[in-house]
């Protein structure tokens, strides 16, 4: 049960990271950026995309623990 909720938590986190990646890429979010006038913040978008993938991997690990 604990593994299941942990897996869901990581999936939710992944969705949040995807949203943040999109917002940074579109230039909507301007927090901690080197150039506030840039159209896209590609580095930040890539970072949050990687974090989203890492969260999905963590979710898979949590899910597998539950089924093992």
């Amino acid at each position: 049960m604990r593994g299941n909720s942990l897996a869901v938590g990581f999936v939710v986190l992944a969705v949040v990271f995807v949203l943040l990646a999109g917002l940074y890429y579109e230039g909507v979010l301007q927090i901690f950026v080197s150039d506030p006038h840039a159209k896209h913040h590609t580095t930040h978008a890539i970072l949050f995309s990687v974090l989203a993938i890492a969260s999905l991997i963590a979710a898979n690990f949590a899910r597998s623990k539950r089924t093992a």
Partner: protein
Amino acid sequence: MTLAQALFMGLLQGATELFPVSSLGHAVLIPSLLHWSFKQSDPSFVPFLVLLHLGTAGALLVVYRTQWVEIIKGFFTAAVRGRIEKPSERLAMLLLVGTIPAGILGVFLEHQLKSLFASPKAAAIFLIVNGLLMLGFEALRRRAEARVAPAAKTRVEQEESFASAEQISFKAAALVGACQALALLPGISRSGVTIGGGLLAGLRHQEAARFSFLLATPIIAAAGVLEIPQLLSSTVPLAEYVAAAVLAGVAAYLSARFLLRYFRSGRLDPYGWYCAAAGAISLALLTFRP
């Protein structure tokens, strides 16, 4: 920048990126001490640094080519399976966990930290701090050695009492990775703080160096690849920069080979003393020289 200066900077970057003496600190201090007119903070300097970093990352990939194949295979296998079964899979996940804090802190704080501390005097002060950190890491390690391997007669025997990179905990990997962010301060060495962090986590010196170099590769390569579009500008003297990058790669390759042999029984102390002395001398020169 002249060709000779570019080649010198390539050699300097390649050698000091892996030695625990801070490449950024040296790259800020030496041109300033030699009264060279170009500045690291100049936007036109970015493509040059990008190529030097790609040269260093390329050298690390060559040094660890077989391990990287195993790590990448292990990463995908473990990620899909959702379970770790082999040491290479564990190492892949440890590197992921170690890279995340460095990536977050690097992306969010790099600009702020570099603009705050990019002066040669700050680099000299942080170089002294880096030296003290190296000496501190070794002092703590000697205590651990007295506790863990009191009967060991040689340095090699002492080292054998400690762990390999695959055995480190995930929490320790995250902490070692977070230490990398300190290297955004010019004068603090990325390899120095990660090797030191590895020692505190109970790794052998050689394994701490291996983990540090493996951990550095994705970050250095990603930082370089992200800036590649800047190289496409027509004003960039690409031939000079590529020559410097090749030199940086060769220097980094030789440095990695040397350090991995050195850390079979060697310690961080000589680099600690070097950094403290170089920082103090640089600070004195920058303060008192007209």
